[in-house]
């Protein structure tokens, strides 16, 4: 196989980004809970400790607030830290250093000191883990000025966005979904960036615009393929970056299709789907042929029981239904 078509697992694409960036730049280091334990971080951090030593691969006690603050402080002092939260839920302990300090820092110092830190949170849901091991908090962070929020959906993006995040001069919240970790895809061996702030058209289409991100892209692709069989040609936009949104890509697609469905793995209220809806209402209202439809989690904490869990997480069927409603075309 030529290196151009080399395939890699999503989680190993992250691992490769970390290896290459740490080898390339001595100011890059990894800190967080479980970085030496596959039980926490799967194979995303494998062989980093062996290669770069415990001074740059720092497994920590459960002290999310201080550890995240330390990453922010190290960034202020000239390093490029990646701080990992193997379950995003625990990242809530670190809201002060992320929001009060990192997000505001560059502004409140009048541009005299920046915070090039990557705050990496893993959504770790399913498996009857219930409400505190399942949450997807992208909207929380997207609300905050001074933070960038990125959500890769493919192995290619997992690597390219991690590299872009490490190189960015600002605090970047990198959110990945454990449900994507085993996916395989083509990943170039060299160092490359996926541009933060730019979305990507996963599938071109003419009938309806489907806006999606992270794991929901997988469900959206299934939905688009299924609908194709019935003559519905879906254009699928992968946001890649939740903040700042690629407004022009969304509006350009909507202008062509006149219909839009937004699929997000978070909640509906004040969520990413609400933000995209507001964008469409404010700047794309004249293109709309039908009301905006949203596919999200219900307004409820995550349940444990498998029966409820299956109902809780939206899938391709929910997206198909939403698109059919929008198009008013029964198959």
């Amino acid at each position, binding site marked *: 196989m030529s290196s151009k078509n080399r395939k890699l697992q999503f989680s190993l694409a992250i691992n490769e980004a970390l290896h290459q960036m740490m080898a390339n730049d001595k100011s890059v280091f990894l800190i967080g809970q479980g970085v030496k334990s596959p039980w926490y971080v799967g194979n995303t951090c494998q062989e980093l400790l062996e290669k770069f030593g415990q001074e740059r691969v720092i497994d920590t006690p459960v002290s999310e607030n*201080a550890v995240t603050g330390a990453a922010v402080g190290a960034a202020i002092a000239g390093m490029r830290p990646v701080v990992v939260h193997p379950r995003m839920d625990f990242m809530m302990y670190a809201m002060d250093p992320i929001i009060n300090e990192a997000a505001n820092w560059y502004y409140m110092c009048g541009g005299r000191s920046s915070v090039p830190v990557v705050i990496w949170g893993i959504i770790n849901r399913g498996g009857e883990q219930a409400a505190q091991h399942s949450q997807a908090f992208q909207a929380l962070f997207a609300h905050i000025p001074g933070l960038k929020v990125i959500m890769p959906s493919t192995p290619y993006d997992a690597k390219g966005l991690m590299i872009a995040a490490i190189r960015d*001069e600002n605090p970047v919240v990198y959110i990945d979904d454990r449900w994507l970790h085993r996916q395989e895809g083509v990943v170039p061996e060299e160092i490359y960036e996926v541009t933060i702030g730019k979305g990507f058209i996963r599938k071109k289409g003419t009938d309806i615009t489907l806006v999606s991100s992270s794991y929901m892209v997988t469900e959206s692709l299934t939905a688009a393929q299924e609908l194709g069989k019935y003559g519905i040609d879906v254009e699928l936009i992968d946001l890649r970056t939740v903040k700042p949104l690629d407004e022009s890509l969304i509006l350009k697609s909507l202008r062509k299709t006149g219909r839009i469905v937004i699929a997000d793995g978070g909640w509906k209220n004040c969520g990413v789907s609400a933000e995209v809806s507001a964008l469409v209402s404010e700047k794309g209202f004249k293109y709309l042929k039908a009301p905006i439809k949203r596919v999200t989690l219900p307004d409820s904490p995550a349940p444990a029981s498998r029966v409820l869990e299956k109902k809780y997480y939206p899938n391709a069927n929910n997206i198909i239904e939403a698109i059919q409603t929008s198009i008013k075309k029964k198959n």
Partner: protein
Amino acid sequence: MEPILNGDVRCPVHLYSGEEAIAAGVCADLTKKDYVFSTHRSHGHYLAKGGDMAELMAEIYGKEIGCSRGRGGSMHLIAPEKGMMGSAPIVAGTISLAVGAALASYIRKEKRVTVSFFGDGAAGEGVLYESLNFAALRKLPIIFICENNLYSTHLPISECRAGNNIYETGKLFRIKSYRTDGNDVLQVYKIAKKAVELCRKGQGPVFLEFMTYRMRGHVGPDDNIQGAHTDIRPEKEIAKWQKKDPIDKFERFLIKNKIMNKEDMGKIWKQAEKEAHKTHAIAHSSPYPKKGELTKHVFKE
């Protein structure tokens, strides 16, 4: 006081009066390569670390030439070229940042020392204990400095803690911890020197608690006397601490030991007053930030 009373200064200022010996004594032991992180009460730390006074004043006036370009105000003072890395008012919020800066020095194998200044109120925040543990675990070159002025905004320490024993918390984490009179600049200098030496030798962290008192209230020029508008501190207590004022104390020492006479001291006071007036004038006459630049500095390009 005047610029506050006449409305030129509207930004809340947390005055350092009464605690000057701590910043002066500690920063005299540091070089400009060493890092300092501070709090809402940061004017003293900024100046002692070498920050420019006119830039400080302009920041308080909300001007573009201010050290934070008028975006931060009195609680966000920075002079990175002097090692004054920043200050912020979320209580205990900069302690973990300082730990991170010390971690950066540890990774880069530098001899640099980081000082984290915080008040007694910060001892009520959990992040202090997380930070102490992590710094001790990694033996980071950091000095945790608690300026215990006995009040957390309005609340006396007796209503915040079961015991007035903040420095002892460092010991729980096997950190060398000391408590000293924070109003005696020579004692402050001496103990901080020892702490800096330990950190440079890789024997950090160190925890220092300096006992002190703020001569003004929590914020602004009000002195928070009981019975007055803000009604916090007994008049007798304030009078007792006025007698321990750190600047008076140092002056008495200088005179007693014939290092300086009253006349020379008067010259220094005059010079300082002149300088302060000059910086006020600079701050007052310099331009505000441009309205069109409201969202400049949200992201670094």
